[in-house]
């Protein structure tokens, strides 16, 4: 079968993944072989998906393909890859290929657990996500793909079942996902009406997306309360997946750290994004443009914006308390998901306004959400891979036990620095560009809904919290002083830095991150094709309003041109200033000498007087929540009586 259309390409990708799952199960005895097969399968299927997505976005929109129909049972597998699906396909394909390459070496040393439970599940998990973002069936195939994703995800999260907390996390994930599935399907059942025959003579079944969309206007007039209830259920269902307040903290921060690190990267970078996909698809693409006035867009928009704002603040504030690297990243994922929901809320709110420029701003907000989805997928996957590399090298996620790793793991540390800058919104990096797009849309939109300016201000405030968070993450692991643990490990003959199969995915993600940061205009231009190639529902209004001329080349501008950001010029000035600073520092011809830090002259450096990550920002944590005394150093880590109190010998100068 030659994939002549994007839909066949995606179907083929899913088939390849499923077949690959069987093959990796058969070859699970040979770890490396199974790993390479899984990588090959994901690379092949990923390339197919990327080809499909590229052909949709770059050439012309395709048509939905019905692969098979079981009329008597009332369901058919109808796939449709439009621009919106394409963006998510690109994200899934990119991250899954890299995670598979990373897995080969990561799983090599986990000898106590077989890979027979790992690679097949990984492949089916990715296949399910491909299906979920391209199926048009809101009931049966939604259920099948969702369950496939949930159950394989469950198996992957409880991959190391000997730890009771992993089992608990996996069970909680399973039940929350089942709840989300049920709630979403109930919503679909409420608004599904009858089958419909297209002008082309094709019969669309009752639960098909287009059939539901076709009957929605009548239902909206007859039973508005029913429609509202259905959309509320969609919001809850996809909100659970995305980790929106108050559902996020129930499952997300437990599940992400329990899974093996490449899976955490996929869970956080990609899987929770199916939640925002669902929200966008149902709230914008499902509602026909003809009922824009009847559908309570403004109310839904404000609800989403408020939920997003609460989510981003609470998620990030809770992350500040965490002392386990992957748990901290998981909480910050909740925070970043808040930005996506906020942007979608801004889009819906502004769409309802009749003022000029507002549809253009709504389109900008939606593109900002998509841009942030891609950016977050890239840098959060990268951060989880970084945390995984550190876990792989040291065997711990505890920030208190780590320190000074940059010396021993320069590639992991360097990529982690860039990813931290990106997520914290440092200018010139990718997170700043996408947040910039969201902020400008929200603040300019205050003319339509004044409260949006407050939401944007809280988002800006939260981004300084994110900065604090990643100063803690990066500073505690890679800077600070070498801890006892790292010191002991560094004495082993083999280097701490991970092998090339784990370094390469990190470097590729780094390159993607830098590109998106320096050329945001190109990214937005590319993403605006999304709206042009998926003209359906309210997205038609957005597509017509896309400000075509404002994202030319490298610069970002907001509709109406009141805001502008040209990263290349700022970068040029910045680099020149760096050279100037370097020249200034070398003017005096000062000599350099390496020496030990000064501890008031009477103490020697040791584990007990090392500043531990748990103490960072104590007063801020107290200000944000209830007071908690800082955790004392566990007795086991203190030296036994009779032994010298400083396990680390006094710091000896070493040429770096």
């Amino acid at each position, binding site marked *: 079968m030659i994939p002549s259309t994007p839909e066949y390409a995606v179907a083929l990708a899913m088939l390849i993944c499923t077949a690959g799952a069987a093959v990796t199960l058969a070859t699970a005895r040979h770890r490396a072989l199974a790993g390479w097969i899984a990588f090959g399968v994901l690379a092949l299927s990923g390339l197919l998906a990327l080809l499909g997505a590229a052909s949709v976005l770059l050439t012309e929109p395709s048509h939905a393909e019905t692969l098979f129909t079981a009329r008597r049972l009332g369901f058919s597998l109808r796939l449709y890859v439009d621009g919106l699906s394409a963006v998510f396909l690109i994200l899934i394909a990119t991250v899954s290929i890299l995670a598979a390459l990373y897995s080969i070496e990561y799983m090599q040393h986990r000898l106590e657990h077989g890979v027979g439970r790992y690679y097949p599940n990984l492949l089916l998990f990715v296949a399910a996500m491909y299906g979920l973002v391209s199926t048009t069936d809101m009931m049966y195939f939604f259920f099948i793909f969702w369950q496939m994703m949930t159950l394989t995800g469950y198996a992957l999260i409880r991959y190391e079942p000997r730890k009771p907390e992993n089992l608990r996390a996996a069970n909680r994930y399973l039940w929350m996902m089942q709840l989300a599935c049920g709630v979403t399907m109930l919503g679909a059942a409420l608004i599904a009406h009858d089958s419909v025959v297209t002008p082309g003579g094709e019969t669309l079944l009752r639960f098909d997306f287009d059939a539901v969309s076709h009957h929605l206007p009548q239902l909206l007039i007859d039973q508005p309360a029913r429609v509202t209830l259905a959309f509320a259920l969609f919001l809850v269902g996809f909100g659970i997946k995305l980790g929106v307040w108050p559902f996020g903290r129930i499952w997300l921060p437990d599940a992400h750290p329990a899974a093996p690190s490449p899976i955490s990267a996929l869970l956080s970078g990609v899987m929770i994004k199916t939640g925002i996909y669902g929200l966008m698809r149902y709230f914008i693409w499902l509602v026909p443009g003809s009922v824009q006035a009847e559908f309570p867009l403004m109310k839904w928009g404000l609800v989403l914006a408020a939920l997003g704002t609460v989510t981003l603040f609470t998620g990030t504030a809770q992350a500040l308390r965490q002392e386990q690297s992957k748990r901290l990243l998981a909480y910050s994922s909740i925070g970043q998901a808040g930005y996506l929901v906020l942007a979608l809320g801004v889009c819906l709110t502004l769409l309802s306004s009749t003022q000029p420029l507002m549809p253009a701003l709504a389109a900008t907000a939606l593109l900002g959400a998509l841009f942030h989805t891609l950016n977050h997928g890239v840098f959060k996957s990268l951060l989880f891979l970084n945390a995984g590399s550190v876990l792989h090298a040291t065997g711990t996620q505890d920030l208190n036990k780590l320190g000074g790793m940059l010396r021993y793991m320069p590639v992991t540390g360097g990529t982690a620095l860039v990813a931290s800058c990106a997520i914290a919104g440092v*200018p010139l990096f990718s997170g700043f560009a996408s947040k910039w797009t969201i902020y400008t849309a929200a603040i300019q939109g205050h003319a339509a809904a004044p409260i949006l300016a407050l939401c944007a201000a809280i988002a800006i405030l939260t981004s300084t919290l994110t900065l604090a968070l990643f100063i803690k993450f990066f500073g505690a692991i890679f800077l600070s002083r070498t801890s006892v643990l790292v010191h002991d490990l560094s004495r082993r003959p083999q280097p701490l830095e991970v092998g090339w199969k784990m370094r390469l995915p990190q470097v590729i993600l780094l390159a993607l991150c830098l590109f998106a940061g320096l050329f945001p205009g190109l990214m937005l231009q590319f993403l605006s094709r999304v709206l042009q190639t998926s003209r359906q529902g309210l997205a038609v209004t957005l597509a017509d309003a896309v400000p075509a001329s404002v994202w030319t080349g490298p610069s970002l501008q907001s509709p109406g041109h009141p805001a502008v950001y040209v990263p290349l010029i700022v970068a040029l000035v910045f680099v020149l200033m760096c050279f100037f600073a370097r020249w200034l520092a070398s003017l005096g011809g000062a000599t350099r000498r390496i020496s030990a830090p*000064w501890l008031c002259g009477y103490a020697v450096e040791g584990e007990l*007087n090392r500043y531990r990550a748990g103490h960072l920002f104590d*007063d801020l944590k107290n200000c944000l929540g209830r007071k908690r005394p800082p955790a004392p150093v566990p007795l086991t880590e203190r030296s036994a009586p009779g032994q010298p109190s400083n396990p680390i010998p006094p710091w000896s100068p070493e040429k770096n």
Partner: protein
Amino acid sequence: MKTAFLIAGAFANVLLVLLLAPWFEGILRKLTAQLQSRQGPPLRQPFFDLLKLLGKEDLETGEMPAVQRAATYLGLAAVLTTACLIPLGFGSPLNGAGDVILLIYLLTFCSVCTLMAGLASGSTFSMLGSSREVMCLVTLEPILAVAILIGAVHRGSFRLDTVLDGSVYASAAFPWSGLVILVVVVLSMQAFLQRLPFDIPAAETEIMDGALMEYSGPKLALLKFSQMAKLVLYSGLFVHLFVPWGAHLAFPLGWLLFWLKVLGVVLVVTVIAATHARYRIDQAIRYFAGLLLVALVALVLASYGY
């Protein structure tokens, strides 16, 4: 022609900051000394200090001296890039390449570089100082951000030249939001400039200059220089946002008036700093958090047109 003009403007801004920042620092030190019945150093002393530091031996105590070097270079570069965004008597040179959101984030990034320097040296005291600096940053930077956003909301624009022009008072009705945010920013000005009573992250008498404790020689010179430059930049920003009157006078007059106003801000800051004692970090954070809430209220007022 226009590009050449902008490049010249950027050079002028950077030169102004480089030359005037130590001089303002000198005024600050002299005035503090006078208020405390001391003689005080001559006004040009900070220049001599910087020159001396540039030639002194550079002790590197971090585990990765390369990170320490990079952090100091980036720190000064960030401050000077910010200087190209803020109009300093002339128009803003980078008006076409960035807006106020970039400005807000760049100002934060200036502090982040100092933090990285502290974390990279990694002594217990510099870690403590860095931790304090982050806590102040998280509660303080949003206040300035909200002040700028209020201007942006009033003007409906994010352009540097439009917002940094007394925009907080540019509301349709009586500018309540502008007055509220003026009070809030005045009350937090000492903290933006890291002067007493809010010099908690550095606190020489407690934690020995915090993040900068392990630095000497040219690196300390660059870090000190960035701090002095921040004094000028924040004062300039304050003048643009809250005391805009007379900014559009003809060249020498408007220019002189701007720098006189900046001098006035520095003098006020100095007088407050010289006569107050330091707050504890937990007191300061609660104080900033309260101010931040008031600032958010002002933003809501602004978005409703007041």
